[in-house]
């Protein structure tokens, strides 16, 4: 157990190292002197000089990386040039909004995806299976920003049921908050529901043919408890880990969804940073996202390890 843990933890180190190399390397893609470009349209010589000094542009590349990574390790992800704020502070400010969106989206995805997957596996090759597969294909092929616009068209413009945009903090007005979040969360959860459905289906199909399920049936259990108690419990394990891996999809999707519904979250932060050529924010957001992804991946592996007694040895 301890051995596995240590091995798994050690494997993270090179991954994080290469991630920082990639993100630091992004800067090298900028054409010309980074300080001049980072200084923005004003081209203030004071700013340029300040940046040249701050980024140690007179030093060789590995030394610059050293300075940058030393800052990162101490929680210094750089500073936004636009709003003169530390990047980490901006992330902390925007993250809760996206987190709420992501959690609701994941709940919607689970509620749609897993039952649909079960129904489709149990009724393999029936109308239900066919319908579930068509819906999954729709979910995978619809660009979520288009779905968002269509939903605004239907529920805000035509029916007038929900607000088209505008975010309200849940601490101010929970009902208004949920009214503003439900459409973006559905849009975001839609694609993940499709992925979950497909995986639940194939996991269930595998398990339903297993010997112990046949035994459960043979001893006269009704089909309902065979499917839900015996089969689903074992099929769920890989699906749980998949949930953690879909975090990347959630964050990528949030970038577009927040743009469509004008939600001031993490995704809006990176898009605004891109428009304002606020490169330090872009780098900070990418670094933060990847680190969270790596940690979640680790946790998913550990969870998988814990619920699967065969691996514990």
């Amino acid at each position, binding site marked *: 157990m301890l051995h596995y843990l240590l091995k798994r933890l050690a494997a993270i180190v*090179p*991954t*994080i*190292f*290469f*991630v920082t*190399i*990639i*993100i630091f390397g*992004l*800067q090298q*893609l*900028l*054409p010309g002197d980074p300080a001049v470009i980072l200084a923005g349209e004003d081209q203030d010589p004071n700013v340029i000089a300040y940046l040249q000094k701050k980024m140690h542009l007179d030093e060789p590349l590995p030394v610059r990386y050293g300075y940058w990574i030393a800052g990162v390790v101490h929680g210094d992800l750089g500073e936004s040039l636009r709003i003169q704020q530390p990047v980490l502070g901006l992330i902390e400010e925007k993250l809760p909004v996206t987190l709420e969106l992501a959690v609701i989206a994941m709940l919607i995805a689970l509620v749609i995806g897993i039952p649909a997957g079960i129904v489709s596996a149990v009724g393999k090759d029936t109308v239900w299976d066919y319908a579930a597969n068509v819906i999954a*294909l*729709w979910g*995978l*092929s*619809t*660009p979520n*920003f*288009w779905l968002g*616009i*269509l939903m*605004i*068209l239907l529920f805000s*413009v035509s029916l007038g049921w929900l607000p*088209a945009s505008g975010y309200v903090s849940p601490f101010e007005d929970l009902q208004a908050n949920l009214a503003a979040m439900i459409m973006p969360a559905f849009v975001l959860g839609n694609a993940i529901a499709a992925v979950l459905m497909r995986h639940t289906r194939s996991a269930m199909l595998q398990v339903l043919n297993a010997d112990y399920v046949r035994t459960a049936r043979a001893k006269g259990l009704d089909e309902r408890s065979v499917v839900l108690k015996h089969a689903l419990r074992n099929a769920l394990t890989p699906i749980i880990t998949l949930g953690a891996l879909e975090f*990347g*999809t959630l*964050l*990528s*999707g949030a*970038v*577009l969804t927040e*743009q*469509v519904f004008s939600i001031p979250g993490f995704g809006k932060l*990176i*898009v605004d*940073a*891109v*428009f304002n*050529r606020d*490169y330090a924010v*872009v*780098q900070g*957001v*990418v670094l933060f*996202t*990847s680190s969270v*992804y*790596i940690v979640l*991946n680790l946790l998913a592996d550990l969870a998988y390890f814990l619920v699967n007694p065969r691996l514990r040895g």
Partner: protein
Amino acid sequence: MSAATPQAMMPNVNPASPARRALRRLLRRRGAMLGLVIVVFFVLLALFAPVIAPYDPIATSWSAVRKAPSMQYLFGTDEIGRDVLSRVVWGARASLLAGLVSVGISMALGVPIGLLAAYVGGWTDSLISRFTDSMLAVPFLILAIALAAFLGPSLSNAMIAIGVSATPIFIRLTRAQVLAVKVEDFVEAARAVGNPHWRIALRHILPNVLSPLIVQATLAIAAAIIAEASLSFLGLGQQPPAPSWGSMLNTAKNYVDNAPWMAVWPGLAIFLLVLSFNLLGDGLRDALDPKHM
């Protein structure tokens, strides 16, 4: 003995070859055929855009601003009086180009690197694998956005950004497939008769790992088309006034209450094209890998 000789393993040698049988299985799948028909439709649309589009896609007309669909403008007009149908037709070029070129870049980088990692093994493999893990740790679209932001907004930079971001998938897939194939008897035989390494890798191993790569490439085109539309939607792809479905949707979202047709058609086009590549990819997977069923 014949099964172990390299020649017998190569596709396209006799009428009952695996490739021919896979093609027959593919032709029987209705979903895949529907996908193929839609793909061909969009390819023709893109190729013959100048003939098909009724108007100039970038010509503005102040007397025809935000006109609802009619006999004159079948899909309506946009906020500066451009014909939406013509822009959707021309937009097929940007989307198809982005799908094909990005995946071309991913494969041109990913397949040789994956082949190298698996064939050489040792430190080379460890280094490449750790680097691939790191790239996969950055969510695909976020990496593409970051790359496009630093490279600067344009369609070609968007294609590079998407292509590079999708590369690790191809490295990983090629590596896994080559690892499985390189221990087969026919590779051993090819080595025993004195073939050089490059010849074993290119002539004996590569053709035998192509099937999963073709499936992955088809599905990757679907993902790349959505990614290009997403980058264009964020202003990082095709630059105005050149038509692209993503940037059309970006403008359309501001007029959704009084010109909804502006949002419907480009989105429908993205959906259909992506759906068709997904259908084709699923069909190819079933046809090329019957075990997957």
